[in-house]
């Protein structure tokens, strides 16, 4: 087993994840797994999510540092710990937060055997890479970093708050193959991004020909921040007005986008199954309420050059300081632009290879009720792969899973996930049917629940549905 693990680890690499719902993917007892792969095998006849309660998802993570790393109870100084962490972390380390709330989710199998599903959910997604150089500059200053080029391009962050309307089709087209697609309309309520920045800041010691002791140089700076849905908020007064305005955009009041989810499930034979999906292949077109800021240019600061002009009584000298400020603004102007921009959604890719064994037979005897439908295995083990496209490239994760149907009303899925947050992420999901009410909960990093402060990421999904099974 350890050899297999080593192989998986080396294949997956030590990348990090966010938005990964490794427990829910392929967990076919829960209707929301259809959101992760529109081409999964649907076992129920109909489902209705209980409004506002069908899926509550939260994921927060930081790849380089945990709460415990900074705030642990110890005799050493907290500032020393922060200093050590700043130098230990890389500019590819990041902080993320994702939250989703389903407002509506429903699905039904039509007479033509197509399973239709649709709904509305709200999503908040944030990522910020660790701007290591700027953190060092803020924490230590420039005295000990003469000639060191601080990289302004390390600034990389995006944030989105949107409503998603979706409708999907799912059909088993042969004995072996099930496919599905989902169309999504995005209504962006608020969005910002600052990516693809460039430039350096360096302080160098001048020589005898220099104007002054140092030269402070900003070189090839090009830093942009794009926002939509922000400019109009600035004029509002107070938190309640801002909240009302943002929520007012939830129903097609903001900027629009369109995207698709695609997926399939293929049974090689009785035991082996491959599935894969791509989510959010699409873009949001920001044209309303757009305000972008761009600072670019080169500048070398030498200080203030006094001229000592001969002055008559009452005459004032040159406005050196104001001139200097004007010069900086001229050389590195901060432009405010209103040009619309297109933002690609972060595409998520999921895949799983699973091996099923033991026929699931809830009644204990003959599986008469399930003769025509899909053959459900009692237990499944397998591998999953996840990746998401982020500003600095894809982030990936690999998962080993074990899924077991315990009774016809209770099933569970356990996962072991490798990502750059940790190598020991164990997760567990449970789906319970009480009458027609389905309740599920899935959480990862369970080993760290003994002390959440040590966890670099936490992920939680839970929800309630009404499920009507095949008769």
């Amino acid at each position: 087993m350890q050899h297999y693990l080593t192989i998986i680890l080396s294949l997956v690499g030590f990348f990090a994840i966010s938005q990964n719902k490794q427990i829910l993917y392929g967990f076919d007892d829960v209707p929301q797994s259809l959101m992760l792969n529109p081409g999964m095998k649907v076992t129920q006849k109909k489902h209705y999510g209980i409004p506002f309660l069908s899926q509550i998802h939260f994921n927060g993570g930081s790849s380089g540092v945990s709460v415990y790393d900074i705030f642990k109870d110890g005799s050493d100084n907290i500032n020393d710990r922060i200093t050590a962490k700043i130098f230990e972390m890389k500019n590819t380390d990041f902080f993320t937060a994702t939250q989703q709330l389903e407002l509506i989710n429903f699905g039904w199998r039509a007479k033509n055997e197509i399973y239709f599903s649709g709904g509305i959910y709200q999503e908040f997604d944030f990522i910020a890479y660790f701007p290591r150089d700027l953190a060092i500059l803020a924490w230590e200053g420039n005295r000990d970093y003469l000639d060191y080029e601080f990289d302004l391009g390390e600034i990389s962050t995006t944030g989105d708050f949107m409503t998603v309307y979706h409708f999907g089709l799912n059909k088993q087209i042969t004995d072996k193959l099930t496919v599905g697609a989902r169309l999504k309309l995005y209504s962006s309520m608020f969005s910002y991004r600052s990516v693809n920045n460039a430039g350096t800041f360096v302080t160098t010691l001048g020589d005898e020909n220099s104007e002054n002791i140092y030269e402070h140089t900003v070189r090839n700076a090009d830093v942009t921040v794009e926002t939509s849905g922000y400019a109009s908020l600035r004029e509002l007064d107070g938190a309640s007005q801002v909240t009302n305005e943002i929520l007012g955009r939830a129903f097609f009041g903001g900027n629009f986008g369109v995207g698709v989810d695609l997926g399939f499930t293929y049974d090689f034979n009785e035991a082996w199954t491959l599935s894969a999906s791509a989510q959010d292949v699409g873009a949001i077109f920001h044209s309303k309420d757009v305000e972008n800021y761009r600072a670019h240019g080169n500048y070398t600061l030498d200080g203030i050059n006094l001229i000592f002009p001969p002055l008559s009584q009452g005459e004032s000298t040159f406005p050196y300081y104001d001139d200097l400020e004007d010069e900086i603004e001229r050389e590195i102007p901060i432009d405010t632009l209103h040009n619309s921009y297109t933002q690609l959604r972060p595409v998520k890719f999921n895949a799983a290879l699973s091996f099923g064994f033991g026929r699931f037979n809830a009644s204990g005897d003959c599986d008469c009720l399930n003769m025509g439908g899909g053959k459900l295995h009692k237990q499944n083990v397998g591998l999953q792969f996840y990746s998401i496209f982020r500003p600095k490239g894809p982030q990936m994760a690999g998962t080993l899973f074990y899924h077991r149907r315990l009774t016809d009303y209770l099933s569970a899925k356990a996962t072991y996930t490798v990502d750059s947050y940790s190598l020991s992420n164990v997760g567990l999901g449970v789906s319970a049917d009480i009458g027609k009410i389905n309740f599920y909960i899935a959480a990862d990093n369970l080993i760290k629940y003994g002390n959440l402060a040590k966890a670099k990421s936490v992920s939680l999904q839970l929800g309630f549905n009404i499920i009507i099974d095949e008769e």
Partner: protein
Amino acid sequence: MNKTLFLPIFVVCICLFFTGCIKNTDFDQAEDIALTPVVELDLIYFNLRAEQFFDSINSNPILTVRDTTDIKFLDDGTLQESLKRAEFYFNFTNSIPRSFQVDFQFLSEVNDTTYVTQTSVSQGTPNAPVISEFIENIEGDDILQLTKAHKVVVSVTIPSSDENLEGTLNLKSKTTYFLEY
């Protein structure tokens, strides 16, 4: 894994889940977090020529020349709170065969004097310029005075001058700001 084994594990996991907690941490330490950057920044520089100390039209020596600049960042509210120490460094290169007295007078926005300091510069020759360095370290209560300053007046005084005087007085300067947020 059979059912008898799975269920206890399942129960343990659920218990873990509902007892998730944060231990061995002390969030009061947040109050001790202090950013203590040390920032090096150029201040003023000039090149005073010897003829600037003589009025050739009226044939009068000008014994003191004076110039003023705003340094608005000093009395900025955030700097007032966070500046713990400031170290000014002045480097004069003098090729004028006279010594000089240089006065730095810091003024508030309404021209009240908040801080003064002065230094002397050794005389040099056009062929052998002489370097004089001056370091002014400001901390404690003096920081309060310094951070009320909105502008600085630099006065350069020569003991005597004539129309044949040659050379230049060059100043380069910087400040090291010891900050704490």
